[in-house]
C-alpha cells in the first residue's frame, strides 16, 4: 500500500473531510502558514482557500468558544493548536461549553467540534511547551479523546472526528509527524473506542499511548531477542477506551505494562491500570507496571531531558519486573529514550 507520513495523512484526512462535507473548516494560529502546524493544514488552505482555512489571532479561549458556536449552527470547525499546552487557556470553553452544551440542552444542540493539538518534546522546549495533558481531557464526560500513533490511524481517526457530532480532542505527538506507514487513499473512518494490536505476543501485554507505542515496539524487539514475546496494544482513543481489548490481551498474557507520554500520578496509566486490575482479578500473574513521566515539570537542559523521558529501557525493565526476570545486559544498550526523533535545531 501507499506509504504516507503522519503529517501527510493528517493533511489528507483534513482535505478529504472538507471535500466531503462543506461544513468542515479549519482555523487556528498559523494554519495557513507553509511552516505552520508541521505542514498539516497548508494543503487544505491551498485546496479550499482562506475562507475555509484561516489564520487567527492568539485568542485561544474565544476561538474555542467561536468553534462551539459555529458547531451548534451546523458547521464542523477543526481548531488547531501548535501545542496542547495552549489548551489550558481554553479549558473553560472546552470543559464547560463544548463538552456540556449538548447535555445541558437535553440533546437539542450538538457541538461537532474537533480540536487538534500537539505534544511537544525535545530540544529544550521546557516545562510549558512539552506537556502531555491527555489525562485532563480524558476525565471529562462529553469529550472524545483520540491519540493516533500510526499514519493510518491519524487519517482514519481524524476522518471520524470530523464526521462526529460531538467534540473530539485529537492529541498528536510531535515526534510522529515524520513517521511513515501505509495509508489507504480513499476516505475511511476508524471507529472511536477500538484499540489495535500493533504487535502480537504471548508473554506480556504492553499498552502504550501515542509515541510510547514506538518505544514499546522497540522494547518488544529487544525482549524478543531474549525470547520474550510482548504484545503491544495501541488504544488509539482514550475516551472511549477499549478496555475489552486490553483486558482480553492481558488475560491471555497474564502480565500488563502501561506506557504513557504523560505524568504518572493521576495520569492515563492509572485509569488503564485500575480497569485492568478490577477486570482481571485472579487472572494476572504479576502486578501491573506503569511507565510514565516522573512527577516533575519538563526540564530545559538536554542533560535532564534524557533522564526525564522513559523509553524502551524503562519499558523493558518494567516487563522484566512483571516476568520477575533478571535485568540482563541487553537493556544497557538501549537509549533511555528515542532521542533522535527531534534533533533540532528548533
Amino acid at each position: 500500500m501507499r506509504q504516507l507520513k503522519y503529517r501527510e495523512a493528517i493533511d489528507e484526512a483534513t482535505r478529504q473531510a472538507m471535500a466531503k462535507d462543506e461544513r468542515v473548516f479549519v482555523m487556528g494560529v498559523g494554519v495557513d502558514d507553509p511552516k505552520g502546524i508541521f505542514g498539516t493544514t497548508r494543503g487544505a488552505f491551498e485546496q479550499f482557500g482562506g475562507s475555509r482555512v484561516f489564520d487567527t489571532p492568539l485568542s485561544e479561549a474565544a476561538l474555542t468558544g467561536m468553534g462551539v458556536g459555529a458547531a451548534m449552527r451546523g458547521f464542523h470547525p477543526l481548531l488547531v493548536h501548535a501545542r496542547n499546552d495552549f489548551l489550558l487557556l481554553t479549558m473553560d470553553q472546552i470543559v464547560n461549553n463544548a463538552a456540556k452544551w449538548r447535555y445541558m440542552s437535553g440533546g437539542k444542540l450538538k457541538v461537532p467540534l474537533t480540536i487538534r493539538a500537539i505534544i511537544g518534546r525535545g530540544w529544550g522546549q521546557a516545562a510549558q511547551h512539552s506537556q502531555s495533558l491527555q489525562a485532563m481531557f480524558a476525565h471529562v464526560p462529553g469529550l472524545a479523546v483520540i491519540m493516533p500513533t500510526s499514519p493510518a490511524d491519524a487519517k482514519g481517526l481524524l476522518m471520524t472526528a470530523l464526521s462526529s457530532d460531538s467534540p473530539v480532542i485529537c492529541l498528536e505527538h510531535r515526534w510522529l509527524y515524520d513517521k511513515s506507514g501505509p495509508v489507504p487513499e480513499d476516505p475511511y473512518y476508524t471507529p472511536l473506542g477500538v484499540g489495535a494490536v500493533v504487535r502480537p505476543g504471548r508473554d506480556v501485554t504492553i499498552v502504550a499511548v501515542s509515541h510510547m507505542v514506538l518505544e514499546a515496539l522497540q522494547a518488544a524487539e529487544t525482549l524478543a531477542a531474549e525470547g520474550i514475546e510482548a504484545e503491544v496494544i495501541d488504544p488509539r482513543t482514550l475516551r472511549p477506551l477499549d478496555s475489552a481489548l486490553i483486558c482480553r490481551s492481558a488475560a491471555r498474557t497474564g502480565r500488563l505494562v502501561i506506557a504513557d507520554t504523560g505524568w504518572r500520578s493521576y495520569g492515563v496509566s492509572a485509569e488503564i491500570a485500575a480497569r485492568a486490575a478490577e477486570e482481571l482479578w485472579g487472572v494476572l500473574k504479576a502486578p501491573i507496571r506503569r511507565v510514565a513521566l516522573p512527577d516533575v515539570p519538563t526540564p530545559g537542559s538536554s542533560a535532564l531531558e534524557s533522564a526525564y523521558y522513559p523509553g524502551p529501557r524503562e519499558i523493558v525493565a518494567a516487563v522484566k519486573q512483571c516476568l520477575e526476570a533478571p535485568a540482563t545486559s541487553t537493556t544497557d544498550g538501549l537509549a533511555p529514550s528515542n532521542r533522535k526523533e527531534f534533533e533540532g535545531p528548533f
Partner: protein
Amino acid sequence: MSRATTKRSARRRPAAPRKRDAGFRGLGPALLVDLYVTMRRIRRVEETIAALYPEQEIRCPTHLSIGQEAGASGVCLALRTTDTAVSTHRCHAHYIAKGGDLRSMFAELYGRVTGCCGGKGGSMHLTAPEVGMLGASAIVAGSVPLAVGTALAAKMASTDEVAVAFFGDAAMEQGVTHESLALAALRRLPVLFVCENNLYATNTPLRIRQAGSDLAQRAAGHWLPGITVDGNDVIAVYRAAKAAVDRARRGDGPTLIEVKTYRFREHVGPNYDIELGYRTQAELDRWMAREPMGALARRLERARMLEPARRAALDAQVEAEITDAVAFAKSSPFPEQAALYADVE
C-alpha cells in the same frame, strides 16, 4: 405562539386618534404593544417564579430579571426568529423575549422531562433553538464567544442572520469577552454584544470591579462601536438594537451596546435583599420609579395606543399563558433515570 398572540392583540387596537409620542416615531403600533406584552410576560413569569419558589418545587437557582425587562425585550424585538441569542445565568428574560415557549420553560424549572432541556439544564441553561435561543452558560462570559461563532456560521453560510450575546456588567471583566469583541471586529461579524449593566455583580458594585462606569467605552480598544443606552427605556433599547442589527446585517460588523439597568430582587432567588446592605433603599426606589414596563404602558396609554381595557385583556392573556404553563410543568413527569446517560457522547 406568544408572539402570535401579541400580533393578534395588536390588530385589535382602537381606531381613535391618538396623542403623538415623538419617541415612538417610526415604530408601528403592533411593535409597541409587543414590546409592552413581552415585558409584561417577563415580569409576570418572574413574579410567578418568585411566588412559587417557596414551595421548593422549583429546585434550581433562579436569577430573576424583574426590573430589567427592557433590555431583553428591546433587543429581541429588533431580531428575527432566525437570528440567534446566547445568554447567562440570568437568562429567563432572553428566552422569553426571543419567543421561547413558556410551558417548556416552566417545565425546565421544575426539572421535568417536558422542559426545554428535558430537565437536564435548569434555570441557567434555557434553550430554544427553534426560535434562535441557543442556550446560556452559567460561567460569567462563557457564552460570549459562542455568539461570535454563530455569527461566523451565519457569514460562512451566507445568510444574513445576526447573533446576540447577552451578558452582565461583570462579563466585561472576563478576558474572553475582550477576545470576542476583538475577534468579531476583526472579522466584521454580525454580532450584537449586549451588556446589561445592572450596576452589580452579585453584591459587589461596579466601582469595586471596574475603573470606569460607562461600559460602552470598553469597546474602544477593540475597534468596534460601543454605545450606551437607557436600559429602562425599551424604545431606546429597541432603536439602538435595531441600528446595530441593521449594521450587522449589512455586513458592517459588530456593536457593543451597554444597556444601563437595575435588578430589583436579590442576585439569586425570589426575595428583596436590601437588608444585606450593599445597596440602599433609596437607590432601589429611584430605579423602581423608573421601571420600564409600566413606563411604556403609560406612554402607550397617553398616546391612546393601549387603552386600559385592552391592556387588561393582554395582561389577562399573559396570565392565562403562565397559569397554563405552570400547570403543564407541575403535571409533567420527571425524566427517567436513563436520561441521565443520554446526550453525552
